[in-house]
């Protein structure tokens, strides 16, 4: 990547984030990005306790604390691409000679950082309110797996965002995706209790392997022992990023051809 592309990736991504999310203030961010995850974690931990599944509270705390990063990844990434169209800035952006891959990937970095903040908050909530006590030695590995999983989710969000480049009801798709991640990725339900076809779908989604790895690490296992799961999560993320970029280019071309870039 040359220096111009690097600037488009880093500085461009940051400026785009500040522009597209200029409405974010603490009074919006705190209830939405911190308050909602806080109660999501409490809700599922108590639900698991009531259901007497035999899983410890940590199963639900770790699952949900990692999963809440997808709130930023799915909705944030969808907005980071699709809102250009809504704000009427998509045309000028795509008329620029800037590298598409730098534009595309640059938007993911602030979204990823935000997802990590939300997940970190989720773990803190788990520790403060629900008795989550991972060993100190497992924290670096847990952090690394959370980064990989949040990145993978952000790449998944890139695919959804690309749909928003042309699709009409992109929030409908993003909402649907968010809830399906909650259901299919073993966040609250052990994968072993789900039907085979759901496990197959879950295996193709982000989060599934990352959450499993995070649970093992939080239970005291080493990073090496979950390298396969973490690696699979990373590969899934890369596959989604490639798919998202391909869709971005295809839909950009289709929008130009149809003269439908800023239309709804």
């Amino acid at each position, binding site marked *: 990547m040359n220096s111009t592309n690097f600037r488009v990736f880093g500085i461009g991504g940051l400026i785009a984030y500040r522009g597209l999310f200029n409405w974010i203030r603490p*009074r919006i961010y705190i209830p939405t990005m911190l*308050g909602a995850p806080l*109660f999501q974690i*409490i809700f599922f931990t108590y639900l698991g306790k009531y259901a007497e599944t035999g899983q410890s509270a940590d199963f639900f705390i770790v699952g949900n604390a990692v999963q809440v990063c997808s709130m930023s990844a799915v909705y944030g990434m969808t907005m980071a691409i699709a809102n250009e169209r809504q704000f009427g800035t998509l045309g000028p952006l795509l008329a620029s000679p800037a590298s598409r891959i730098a534009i595309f990937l640059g938007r993911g970095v602030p979204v990823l950082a935000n997802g990590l903040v939300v997940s970190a908050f989720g773990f803190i909530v788990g520790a403060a309110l629900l008795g989550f006590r991972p060993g100190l030695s497992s924290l670096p590995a847990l952090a690394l797996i959370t980064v990989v999983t949040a990145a993978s989710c952000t790449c998944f969000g890139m695919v959804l965002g690309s749909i928003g480049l042309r699709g009409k009801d992109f929030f409908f798709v993003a909402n649907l995706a968010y809830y399906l991640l909650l259901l299919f990725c073993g966040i609250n339900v052990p994968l072993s209790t789900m039907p085979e076809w759901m496990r197959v779908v879950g295996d193709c989604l982000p989060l599934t392997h990352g959450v499993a790895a995070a649970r093992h690490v939080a239970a005291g296992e080493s990073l090496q022992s979950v390298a396969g799961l973490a690696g699979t999560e990373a590969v899934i993320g890369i596959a989604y990023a490639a798919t998202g970029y391909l869709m971005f280019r295809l839909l950009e071309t289709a929008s130009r051809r149809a003269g439908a870039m800023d239309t709804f």
Partner: protein
Amino acid sequence: MTLTAYLRIVGLGLVFRLREFAVSRWFIQMATVQPIVFASIAFYLFHAGGRPGTLLYAALGAGMMGIWSSTLFGSGGALQWNRMQGTLELLVAAPPPFLVVLLPLTLATSITGAYAIVATLVWGRIFFGVPLHFVHPLAFALAVPIAVVALGLMGLLMATSFVLYRNANALANFLEYPVWVVTGLLFPVALLPGWVAPISWLLAPKWGIDAIRNAALGGAVWRPLGLCVLTGAAYLVLAAIFSGIFERRARAEATRSLT
């Protein structure tokens, strides 16, 4: 304006809003897909645990969760949408009281949300074999609409206060899970710390789900149903008081139309 005129506004407004929401993908998703996802999670958890007999309990709770979400996001979102489209001032400036204009909207959000109960029961029956045997079917048929109206009135109370806030959507995003937790929609409030119970007593979804569950699974129906009516009526009175206060304040602070 006469009471008949107000009733006509509410009636026509309700039909208009129900037709509007019936073609909204967003509302349909909120009232069907989301409750089905939560119901499925609960079904799997209860199956995995020692509580397979509570599947109807979970289906009804997940259905009520859908009604709450629809009411919450509908009441918060509708004001925000009107605010963005520049029609909120017109609604406030219309001759009938703002409360009468707002009531059909919030009732329509909870009625649309009632798809959720149908969705979770049908889904549960087909895919998880949930037994649809109701101990008191007539009481059940009465409890569901009463709970739905009470939630609509709760939405009215929220919407009147949302007039004051430019960021009503953020508040709505926050309030979804806490009410699910505090009102015991999928697990009993007794599991939570003792100080949570008195909060739940003020919330219509708690009495609504108690009445619906007791009608379906057996237990006292009329007391929770009466309390559901009572809390709904209290929301209506409070909404009437607050709508005047908040409307004046929104005018004074010029916060009504700002997006």
